[in-house]
């Protein structure tokens, strides 16, 4: 940590933008971990000792070299929109704030290359100007960065068409800086991308990201309301399975979740009704309307998606914004993050809704997985205590629903990605031999 580091460490960073004001240190060392009462207890008060704001890759290299030489922990910060303390420094040290490493390098032929600190919303708008758009983005699109997304995210708005970030072909390349006395710049492509993708910056510092893009479509936002939860769930699945309907978003929220949503047009969220939030290409808006009607629902909102800071886009009620909207109104709720059994996801969804009623408000994000429509769920939970939370999790497990624990900052607690866990551990040994990058997050390293 810095106090122990000799003055030579500060000297090595001479000329870089440094911040060490205690308020700034505290504020910038946080993400949205406080959605979880468990993480809140564990992470409150954790902070870096020094913030460095690099403007070029060379400056990143200088910081990495200094940390490696002096044994100072180094944690990378993007937009800090994660939910598991991905970027919270557990052992102090340097917080590398990537906000100024924000050049868009090029956009061409369906690919875009960005420095890690480019905000996703800005990247998307730049792509749109050339007829392209991001394949997927998190609900935090306006704040999150490209680098933060690939290091701490997994899927998002667009996954109903393009699957997961980790699917081959989503992320095309990562340029990383190692944490060594003489840092190396490594271009990761193909399977090697797994060495740094969704690794919370524990294996290397991602400085550039090359993404596959999608051609830009005109989008329509729609909300469909249903009297009955099972009908709504079956509709959301059928919609996702309709090969002829080009979608970007297919999100299911059980009543009373919509009660927490503010800022939508009058009549969008009828009392007592379960809703599905949809983004569909303009050419299929009528198709969706017909399907809603056929399934006994009602379209309560239909509007053209436009880039306008003054309008809250529909996607800001989905993915983990759903939990945020609820937390804005009721500080006592928290959430779960679960993975559903392929081919039986709707049945499990309905069964879990019946099992827990309003204590666990169902919220499912439909997405493509291995070519088929499945959902993951970010249920909003009326929190009583930790024991009850785990009881709920065990109840879910009896229905085939697996936890991807959002109440843990440990990398390996998210899903089961053993293959990339091995790859990441091996890469960390060569790229961060002293274990300085985001220490405490990779349990296999800590154990080794």
């Amino acid at each position, binding site marked *: 940590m810095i106090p122990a580091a000799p003055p030579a460490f500060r000297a090595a960073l001479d000329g870089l933008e440094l911040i060490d004001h205690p308020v700034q240190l505290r504020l910038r060392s946080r993400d949205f971990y406080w959605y979880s009462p468990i993480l809140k207890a564990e992470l409150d008060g954790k902070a870096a000792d020094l913030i460095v704001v690099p403007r070029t890759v060379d400056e990143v290299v200088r910081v990495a070299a200094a940390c490696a030489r002096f044994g100072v922990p180094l944690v990378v910060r993007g937009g800090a929109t994660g939910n598991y303390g991905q970027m919270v420094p557990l052992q102090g040290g340097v917080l590398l704030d990537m906000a100024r490493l924000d050049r868009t390098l090029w956009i061409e*032929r*369906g*690919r875009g290359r960005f420095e890690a600190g480019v905000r996703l919303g800005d990247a998307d708008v730049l792509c749109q100007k050339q*007829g392209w758009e991001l394949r997927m983005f998190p609900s935090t699109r306006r704040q999150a960065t490209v680098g933060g997304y690939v290091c701490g995210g997994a899927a998002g708005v667009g996954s109903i*068409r*393009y*699957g*997961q970030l980790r*699917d*081959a*072909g*989503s992320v*095309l390349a990562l340029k990383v800086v190692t944490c060594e006395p003489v840092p190396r710049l490594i271009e990761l*492509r*193909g*399977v090697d991308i797994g060495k740094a993708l969704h690794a919370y910056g524990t294996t290397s510092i991602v400085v550039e990201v090359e993404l*596959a*893009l*999608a*051609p*830009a*479509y*005109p989008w329509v936002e729609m909300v469909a309301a249903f009297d009955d939860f099972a009908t709504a769930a079956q509709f959301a699945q059928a919609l*996702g*399975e*309709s*090969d*002829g*309907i*080009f979608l970007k978003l297919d999100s299911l929220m059980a009543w009373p979740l919509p009660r927490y949503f503010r800022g939508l047009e009058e009549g969008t969220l009828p009392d007592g009704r379960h809703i599905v939030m949809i983004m569909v*290409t*303009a*050419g*299929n808006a*009528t*198709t969706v309307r*017909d*399907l809603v009607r*056929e399934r006994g629902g009602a379209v309560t909102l239909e509007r053209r998606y436009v880039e306008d800071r003054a309008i809250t886009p529909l996607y800001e009620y989905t993915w983990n914004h759903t939990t945020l909207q609820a937390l804005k109104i009721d500080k006592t709720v928290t959430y779960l993050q679960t993975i559903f059994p392929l081919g039986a996801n709707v049945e499990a969804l309905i069964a879990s809704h019946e099992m827990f009623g309003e204590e666990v408000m169902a919220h499912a994000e439909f997405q*493509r*997985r*291995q*070519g*088929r*429509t499945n959902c993951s769920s970010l249920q909003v939970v009326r929190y009583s205590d930790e024991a009850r939370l785990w009881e709920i999790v065990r109840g879910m497990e009896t229905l085939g629903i697996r936890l991807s624990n959002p109440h843990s900052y440990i990398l390996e607690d998210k899903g089961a990605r053993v293959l990339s866990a091995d790859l990441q551990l091996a890469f960390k040994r060569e790229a961060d031999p002293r274990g300085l990058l985001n220490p405490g997050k990779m349990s296999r390293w800590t154990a080794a």
Partner: protein
Amino acid sequence: MDGGMKAVDWPSVAADLAPIECITDRALVRQKSRDFFWYSPVLNERLKGVRGDLLVSPTNEDEVVRTLAYCHGRRIPVTPRGAGTGNYGQAMPLEGGVVLDLGRLDRFLSLEDGVARAQAGLKLGDLEAHSLPQGWELRFHPSTRRTATIGGFIAGGSGGVGSIQFGGLRSRGNVLGLRVITMEEKPRVLELRGEEVMQAIHAYGTNGIITELEIPLARTWPWHEAIVAFDDVGRAASFGNTLGEADGITKKLVSVFDWGAAQYFKPLLSHLPAGQAIALCLIADPSREAFAMLAYDSGGRIVFERAAGGDGGEIPPLYEFTWNHTTLWALKADRTITYLQCLFDGPDYLDKIARAVATFGDETPMHLEFTRVGGHVAAFGLQLVRFTNEQRLYEIIAWLEATGCPVADPHTFILEDGGMKTIDEAQLAFKRQTDPLGLLNPGKMRAFSPPACPVVERPA
């Protein structure tokens, strides 16, 4: 069968319909009465003598209405025709009468928000000539893209190049609207919207004449063509499935061929390793790297690549070796070959393919078109068949059906015996409203029994 209706004085019909263009020349009418039914030796026997009596070529919807009203009055059958690229005699006038050539109803009407509206006779390639400069392309098209019409595709086709992304014509959302003229004393102009369109899709024009249609398009990609070679067709099929299910790799075509089928692709032969199975693929440019990795991991070797917009050289677009063009290449080399159409679907569909290959070997060289069906990936089998006789053909079909691979028999012109399998009640009910006398493309919809209606003599 020597087609034709003898009781009618066709030159006088032509005179009555003037100034609508009518042709009575027997050779020309015969030529315009045919499609690619001769891919099937069974259909060839049954349909080779079929011909209409009068070719009518309207240039606008009013002329279609006039023709239908006139023919209804005289109880003359009318069989609509696009470009005649079907394979089951869809557009062949079994009872003679008027062949209604819609090829001149070929206006591109509008493109807004990615939704195109066109007249039925517009060729698919010409539709794209309008839409591509604006960044839009067909969601999927048959391998006959250069010649087929959009109306013919919707009335007689099912899916094609792009179905691996969007499913087929029957997948909800791929056809938004159809304008249909009924066959009645006073023909009505109906605008079918949403799911109503299913009443007339793939109905061979038996229940209304489609004059206009509205379809959502897809944004264009730079499409990269590639051929991957594999030691055996099992590996190639497994690759096809993995590629189909790879959500991060954007593709428009995944076609797999046994060497037994690939050996007929003459313009490609210098690139194809003899004896190997191949996959022909269209891949979005940014997905090339992930595609190449997947091909390698699947034990494949890329033997041919052509960049998007690259120089064609002597090699036609790769899609012209796929879907039913495959059979055409084989037939060019060997007139005794025919083909099948079946669906390999379900969790064990790769196993079903393996069993079909093991059972029939080179008697039915495997040809697979990977496609999305009902929200997942499956494969259409368009196996070539080294034809011996009809009995053997139906033995093969029976084996496939018994193995859980429904066959859309391409050796019948009957709607219900082909892809539809059963009577489509909605189509039948629609026909009762739109063509009560059964004059439209008669003989194709078995469930419909028309009332007896002798030809009405020309009023004096």
